[in-house]
């Protein structure tokens, strides 16, 4: 499931809106304008947060910190509270038990899986409760790509100060490890350096880092060349999995649509259509070019040097 891909949807952005609302009125609009949206697709979003010297990472309802896993096994009631919102897809929102120390993170699963999810969470001692998202602290939202890379979607760093002056820095970056820091929590000083490496940011004090990631093409969304190169493996995997149904990937320099990646099955189908169009155009041109010019049999024979009389 973690390899199914990361898909941003309108529902996810609505959920993100609760978060982004803290950052000023322009944040959500910026996110919606920049983050591709695909209705009905799967969203796998994780969050990492800092709790003292430790960085915590969770994806799709699973806390990856070994300490949390052990704690959950020992006492499930010590785990974060769970909320679910019944939309087209199920979005499950987790809230840390101590909002001032922890942060919220959320994930989503398809509707068809909610029954299993509910059972799973119930078995783990989770309560499906409604709860507001509060208490963000040094939060990062991370998506998991279908090639197993972590993708940073955003980071909320100490949002409570100078909210109105918060810039929104669109950046790109991935980690090469799907499960960073699981075994080795990073000290604060190294964490900053690590974050800069992750997001490729040169600004050490970014208040918010947003990564716009997509591995599907939607109308109006175009990848950069570096995006396309970076996610090529994921695109190919999606083409392999979805075949002709897979959305093509449009990319180009500065997001200008200049080239397309598409599944070979789609390409094969398009060949016929293209052939159709080209040939039909040629026929139309030829029809239009027919001026009614006619050549007599005698002139035609003369052109080929054939004497008709002895034939």
């Amino acid at each position: 499931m973690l390899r199914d891909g990361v898909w941003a949807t309108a529902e996810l952005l609505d959920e993100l809106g609760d978060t982004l609302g803290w950052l000023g009125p322009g944040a959500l609009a910026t996110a919606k304008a920049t983050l591709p949206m695909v209705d009905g697709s799967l969203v796998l979003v994780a969050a990492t947060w800092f709790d003292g010297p430790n960085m915590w990472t969770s994806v799709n309802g699973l806390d990856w910190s070994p300490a949390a896993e052990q704690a959950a096994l020992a006492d499930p009631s010590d785990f974060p509270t769970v909320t679910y919102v019944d939309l087209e897809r199920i979005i499950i929102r987790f809230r840390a038990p101590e909002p001032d120390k922890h942060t919220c993170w959320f994930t989503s699963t398809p509707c068809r899986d909610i029954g299993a999810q509910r059972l799973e969470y119930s078995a783990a001692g989770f309560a499906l409760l409604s709860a507001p998202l509060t208490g963000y602290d040094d939060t990062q939202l991370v998506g998991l790509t279908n090639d197993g890379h972590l993708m940073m979607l955003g980071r909320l760093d100490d949002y409570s100060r100078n909210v109105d002056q918060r810039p929104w820095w669109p950046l790109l970056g991935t980690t090469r490890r799907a499960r960073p820091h699981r075994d080795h929590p990073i000290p604060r000083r190294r964490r900053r350096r690590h974050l800069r490496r992750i997001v490729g940011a040169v600004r050490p004090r970014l208040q918010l880092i947003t990564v716009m990631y997509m591995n599907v093409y939607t109308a109006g969304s175009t990848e950069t060349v570096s995006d396309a190169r970076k996610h090529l493996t994921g695109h190919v995997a999606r083409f392999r999995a979805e075949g002709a149904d897979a959305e093509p990937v449009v990319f180009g320099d500065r997001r200008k649509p200049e080239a397309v990646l598409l599944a070979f099955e789609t390409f094969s189908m398009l060949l016929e259509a293209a052939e159709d169009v080209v040939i039909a155009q040629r026929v139309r041109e030829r029809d239009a070019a027919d001026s009614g010019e006619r050549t007599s049999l005698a002139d035609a024979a003369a052109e080929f040097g054939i004497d008709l009389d002895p034939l």
Partner: protein
Amino acid sequence: MTARRRGPYLNVVLTAVALADLRQIEKRSLDVLAQVFRLLKQLDNGTLQPTRLQSLAKTGDLTDCGKIVVLVDGEPEHRIVVRDLGGSFQVSEVVAVENRTDDLPYLLAGLRLARQGDPIRRSDASRRIARIRRALDQPDET
């Protein structure tokens, strides 16, 4: 090339595309070309009656046209498609001359005479022609 010349052999005229067909045939086989002119001469003097064509979905209505079989030993069969301009093919217009494989000459005639009103069928015929020509290793010309 197009200057009319008074004299015999005026009951048969060739369209520009039919003339282009003959140029292609000339490259492939002079024997076939000579046989084509032999048959057209017979058509011109009324000693040859083409077989009238039908209205088929893939070609369109070609009932005003006829076919002439071109048989040459050691060469693929060709067909001449002529349109009847004067009744009973007393005056004819050569529409297409081509290898008969997969009804190529009739498909060509239907397209050239715009007998395919449905654009989908028209484009389908165009595709067929292109594929047949590829199979015959002919230039992709319609």
